[in-house]
C-alpha cells in the first residue's frame, strides 16, 4: 500500500529531514517502561543503584522509546506513507539517560521510482547534547505520485 505525499514529491538525495528534539525525563522512562515491560521490569530502566553498579551513570532509557521520536519526525515529514508500506531499522550504539536532549537527524539517501510508486530511503541518526550518536538506522517509505 502506498499513498501520495506532497513533501516527498520534490525530494532529491541529500535533502535533510526536519530535525526534532526531545528532552528525556525520568517520568517518561518510567511510563514507557510500564507499557513495554509490564511486571517484567528490567532494573537498568528504573533502579539507579543497579544501573550505577552496572557501570552507567543513571538509569537507561529504552531504545524503542527513542524510536518513537524518530517515528514522530518521519510522520511529520512524510505523512500517511510513513504509516503503511514503510520500514525502519535501528542500531543502538549509545545509552540515553534522564536529562539527555536527543535530536533526530535524517537525510534522504536514495530515491527509486518504480511506477506507480517511489521508494525513499532515509538514513537517520539520533544524537545527544554532546554530539554523540546513540541510534543509527534507515527508514524506507513508499509513496505514490499524486
Amino acid at each position, binding site marked *: 500500500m502506498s499513498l501520495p505525499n506532497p513533501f516527498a514529491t520534490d525530494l532529491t538525495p541529500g535533502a535533510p529531514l526536519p530535525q526534532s528534539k526531545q528532552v528525556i525525563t525520568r517520568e517518561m522512562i518510567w511510563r514507557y517502561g510500564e507499557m513495554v515491560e509490564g511486571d517484567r521490569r528490567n*532494573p*537498568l530502566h528504573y533502579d539507579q543503584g543497579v544501573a550505577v553498579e552496572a557501570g552507567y551513570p543513571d538509569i537507561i532509557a529504552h531504545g*524503542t522509546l527513542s524510536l*518513537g521520536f524518530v*517515528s*514522530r519526525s518521519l510522520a511529520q515529514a512524510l*505523512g500517511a506513507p510513513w*504509516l503503511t508500506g514503510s520500514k525502519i531499522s535501528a542500531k543502538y550504539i549509545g545509552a540515553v539517560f534522564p536529562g539527555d536532549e536527543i535530536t533526530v537527524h535524517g537525510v534522504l539517501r536514495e530515491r527509486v521510482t518504480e511506477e506507480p510508486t517511489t521508494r525513499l530511503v532515509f538514513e537517520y541518526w539520533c544524537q545527544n547534547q554532546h554530539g554523540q550518536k546513540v541510534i543509527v538506522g534507515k527508514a524506507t517509505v513508499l509513496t505514490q505520485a499524486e
Partner: protein
Amino acid sequence: MSPTNFVRFEEIEPGQSFIRTTVVLSPELIESYKDVVGDRNPLYDEMSTFGCRVAPPTLGAIYLFRSFYATFPPPPGRLHASLECDFFQPWREGEIITISGHVVDKYLKRGKKYVLFQLSFTDEHGTEIARARVEEATPE
C-alpha cells in the same frame, strides 16, 4: 523480578516459538503512547486517510519485549541491540492484534551473547500488519 526466575541464554534455541498474545488497540493505549513519545500529529486523528483513528506505527515496539519475555523471562541486564520493523498496514484503533514469534538465531559477537527473534503482528482478519526482527544482548 526474582534473579533466579529467568531463562538463560543456553536454554534458548532457534526455532522455539513464543506464547501467542493478543492486544486491543484501545483509545487509551494509543493516547498513552502518543503522550509518552510526544507525537500529537493530527495525521492519526484524520478520518479521511484511513477511515478511522490510527496509532503511530512504532506503538508495536512496546510489545516486542513483552511477547519475548512472556516465554523467555530475561536475566537482569539484558539490553536491546538492534531491530528491523516492516509496517504493512496502519495500526487501527479498536483492532485486536495477535502477536506471534519465534527465535531465529543465537550467537556470540565480540564476546557478547545475542538472541535474534522475529515477531509478526496480525489483525483479526489474519492480515499481517507488521513484522519485526529484534536482536538482544545478554550480559550472562
